[in-house]
């Protein structure tokens, strides 16, 4: 850990500390709306880190992370609503459930040498398969949804992940910060090096003694587990779940936007991406309203155009470019 810190250039250290301090202090000055936006920023930064681990570091494209998000969310909320098992315990059941799903996807994909686009489509297929499955799973309310009450005993207590925006704000902040630390640490760990090798050249990695299947499976394990924790947060933040919402391919796409736009395979990319994209959407809404434009869809058009422009101009993401500009760059990890 200390190693990571020492490796940062001085400007980077200042920058990190300042950003963290600002984030911790934000509720003092920010209003509730800004907080709710920041909650989303951290939430997407966190999920982006989880996905980035698999794609950015281990080089495996998953377009079905909604699967792990949904399984995490459903497991924890169902444990709470059906058996009164709180989320702090439930999360430790949600993680293995999602991780097991990840293992199945990974095992099927990598054992049978399915790669690139084909692997991506396999992940979509699993997510969609599960979505329809949950549409018929009566115990979690099937397609009619699973609901968490707000006034059952203890449901408003922090130990049951209930409460005001500050709880969710700091929780999301802690998740995002912890995920970033974890990713930074993993990046400098033997495991991280193995992933990079697998991403760069699987055959050469194998020749260097790396069991690439195992390396990919571990990446999937961690990524799916992290995503499941994000799912638990989602479930308790929104307090209702519908298969068509959480397992939707749109969710998966949402998760991967921030890291790609921010900078794939970088530690700060997912954060930068989330900081850009979520407020971009919100600002567009606000701007539209400000100028009295009430044309449904117009905002999304601008959003889509922005994505196209960014990926055309900065294919490796905004962060590497930004880091260069701010003098914070080290060679891309």
């Amino acid at each position, binding site marked *: 850990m200390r190693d990571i810190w020492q490796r940062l250039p001085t400007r980077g250290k200042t920058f990190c500390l300042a950003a963290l301090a600002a984030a911790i202090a934000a509720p003092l000055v*920010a*209003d*509730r*709306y*800004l*907080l*709710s*936006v920041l909650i*989303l920023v951290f939430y997407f930064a966190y999920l982006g880190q989880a996905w980035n681990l698999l794609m950015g570091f281990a080089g495996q494209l998953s377009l079905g992370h909604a699967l792990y998000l949904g399984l995490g969310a459903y497991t924890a909320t169902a444990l709470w609503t059906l058996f009164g098992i709180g989320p702090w315990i439930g999360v430790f059941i949600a993680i293995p459930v999602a991780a097991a799903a990840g293992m199945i996807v990974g095992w099927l994909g990598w054992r049978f040498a399915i790669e690139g686009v084909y692997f991506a489509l396999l992940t979509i297929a699993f997510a969609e398969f599960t979505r*329809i499955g949950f*549409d*018929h799973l009566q115990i979690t309310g*099937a*397609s*009619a*949804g699973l*609901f*968490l*009450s*707000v*006034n*059952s005993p203890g449901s408003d207590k922090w130990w049951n992940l209930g409460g*005001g*925006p500050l709880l969710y704000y700091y929780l999301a902040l802690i998740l995002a910060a912890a995920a970033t630390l974890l990713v930074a640490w993993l990046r400098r760990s033997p495991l991280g090096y193995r992933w990079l090798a697998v991403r760069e050249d699987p055959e050469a990695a194998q020749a260097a003694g790396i069991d690439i299947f195992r390396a990919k499976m571990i990446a999937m394990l961690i990524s799916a587990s992290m995503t499941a924790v994000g799912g638990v947060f989602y479930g308790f*933040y*929104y*307090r*209702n779940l*519908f298969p*068509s*919402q959480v397992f939707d391919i749109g969710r998966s796409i949402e998760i991967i936007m921030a890291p790609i736009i921010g900078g794939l395979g970088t530690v700060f990319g997912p954060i930068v991406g989330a900081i850009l994209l979520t*407020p*971009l*959407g*919100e*600002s*567009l*809404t*606000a*701007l539209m*309203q*400000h100028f009295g434009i*009430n044309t*449904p*869809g117009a*905002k*999304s058009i601008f959003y889509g155009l922005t994505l196209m422009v960014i990926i055309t*101009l*900065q294919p490796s993401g905004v962060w590497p*470019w930004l880091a260069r500009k701010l003098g914070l760059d080290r060679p891309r990890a």
Partner: protein
Amino acid sequence: MPNDPFKFSRRSVLAGGVAGAALLAAPGIVRAQAQTLKIAVLLPQSGYLAQAGQSCHRGALVAPQVLADLGYKVELVHIDMESNPDVARTQTERAINEGAHCIVGAFDSAGTLAIAQVCEQRQVPLIVNIGAAPQLTEQGYKFLVRNFPTGGMLVKNGLHQIQALIDATKIAPKTAVFLHANDNFGLAQRKGMDALFPKSGLPFKLLESIPYDPKAQDLSVEVTKIRGLNPDLLLVVTRAADAIKLVRDTVRQKFQPMGIISPGAPGLYDEEFYKALGPLADYHIDALPWANPKSKVTQALEAAYTKAQPKFRFAVECFNVGFTFDALMIAGDAFKRAGTTNGPELMKALKATNLVDHAMIGGPIKFDEKGQNNDIPSASVQNRNQTPTVVLPAEVATMTPVLPMPPWQGRK
């Protein structure tokens, strides 16, 4: 050099960012003791619920003038929640920051519950215009009222209407099949059917309940399955686009039931349904809450609507428009009685609502302790000359019901 293209736009990006940040941070506008009630209307105007959301939105657009004429002072902020709970949640926060005293929305259950979280914490009342998931009023939200029937209530009233239709037309169906979309609304109705049909005493047998995937691309297999069962009545819960596919395949497969009746779901009377099916759209029946043609409020609303939205027909839109309007009127009424925009007091006034004159049929609007209005009866609405027409109950009907429906062949 490779960064040059970006340099060009940096300034504009910066400008956009600053403008965005300024808007994000816009401080809450003075709130207390306002002369008008500021209501934020959150609807899914884009995304997968756009069709219904935009229909509700048209209702919200004409409401302020009508309400002003009725003596209610409201000011509306229209927000597109994009069929996305994330957006619903942040935009609710923003709307309240910018001075909204009350929220109306949001057609979709997931979005509604995302809004409910915020409203509960900020003690700002949420009036659900449309949203049938029974759980909305079962989760213990203290700042939520719903002037819309639950899935179970819709089915219960719908089954009553079917009995009334059988009585009125003297048909004697022996069998029926229930087809429903397997989404949250459809499944809520299915649960209602499973619970209520056996107790309803209806004189026919329910052969099977068939769920279909609302994302499926065609319904020909479903129709073939139904044709194999050959029921007298086809009871359906569909979305508009699916209803078109359903009727088309039914006609193509030359299957001729006595009637296609929805026991409590919209879907058989949208404008796109008429446009797609023409004469074949006629004689299908929806049993659901409807605008009361005899009510003065409804008449005023219709007049205003017809003027403001010449491209749309009030008769077709009155379900979405009417419920959205009523939700706004409930808010305006509570404000009038409370005399303040203060959330808890407004909420107290809302709970004490006893609104006699409103757009949709039914008695005075009242809420139980959970915030549910339990008195929202259904009417039987039959498509006649490609217009939804109330045929039952008799006191609000403008035509008499026709069953069995005329055969597909030879319709003009």
